[in-house]
């Protein structure tokens, strides 16, 4: 069995990779995992907030991808396709964890503790900043302190880049609820990160 120390350039485009996967070439399989598993894991972890559950979602994602590979048409790109499967897996786990409550019930207005308190400008220019590991850890930590209901919407909209409509459909929510939750998540994150941003 080939390990993961393979030459990734042998499948340098998705078409070649997909053809290799459909021929069940072990190196193609290793390449797919090496290229996409860390991204899928990151997505699952951000949604679930639990490393073990994220690992389970990652495994299920690749098993489901196996099952669907022969019918995959390649319109959305392998990464987007895997992301979508992973998101559905993670959402299913969240619903199992707290049936119908966590995702569906949340106040759809700004809460008192979300009114901006930090009113000092940030000096960091995000477009120019090379994010260091400390800032990355701070960002991820702040994300994990968000209530699940807000974090899920934030991850799908602002991190994964889904539209309001796509996010609403995926979560079974109205678009206005998605907008309010995204707004609340942004305000909370801004507060959480303001102290760090003012000190660096």
């Amino acid at each position, binding site marked *: 069995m080939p390990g993961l120390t393979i030459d990734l350039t042998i499948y340098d485009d998705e078409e070649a990779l997909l053809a290799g996967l459909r021929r069940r070439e072990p190196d193609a399989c290793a390449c797919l*995992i090496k290229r996409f598993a860390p991204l899928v894991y990151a997505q699952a972890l951000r949604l679930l907030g639990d490393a073990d559950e994220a690992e389970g979602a990652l495994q299920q994602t690749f098993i489901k991808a196996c099952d669907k590979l022969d019918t995959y048409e390649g319109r959305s790109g392998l990464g987007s396709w895997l992301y979508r499967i992973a998101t559905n897996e993670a959402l299913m786990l969240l619903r199992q964890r707290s049936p119908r409550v966590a995702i569906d019930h949340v106040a759809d207005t700004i809460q008192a503790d979300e*009114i901006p308190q930090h*009113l000092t400008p*940030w000096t960091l220019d995000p477009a120019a*900043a090379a994010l260091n590991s400390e800032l990355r850890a701070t960002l991820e930590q702040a994300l994990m302190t968000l209530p699940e209901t807000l974090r899920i919407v934030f991850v799908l909209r602002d*991190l994964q880049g889904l539209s309001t409509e796509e996010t609403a459909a995926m979560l079974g929510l109205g678009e206005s609820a998605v907008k309010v939750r995204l*707004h609340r998540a*942004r305000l909370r994150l801004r507060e959480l990160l303001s102290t760090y941003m003012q000190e660096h």
Partner: protein
Amino acid sequence: MTCEEVIAHLSSYLDHEMDAALAAEMQEHIAQCRNCRVVLDTTQRLIVLLHDEGRHIIPMGERSALFDRLQQAFLNRPPASDSNTTV
């Protein structure tokens, strides 16, 4: 427009999901209100910052056993009906 109204509509403004008349009112308030200007600017920076972070992986550490399981799942999947492969 009050500061509270500006804060309530901030994301709609940043996402360009606001009608022009309301956006003009926002701009008028923000031009005169330093605090709302700071909140708008920092929220905008946050969105850019975290959008970039979304493309960053989280180190998985020592998870070679997981990689092996994933690989086995792929390789052991049942053959496709139209497949000519032998693996």
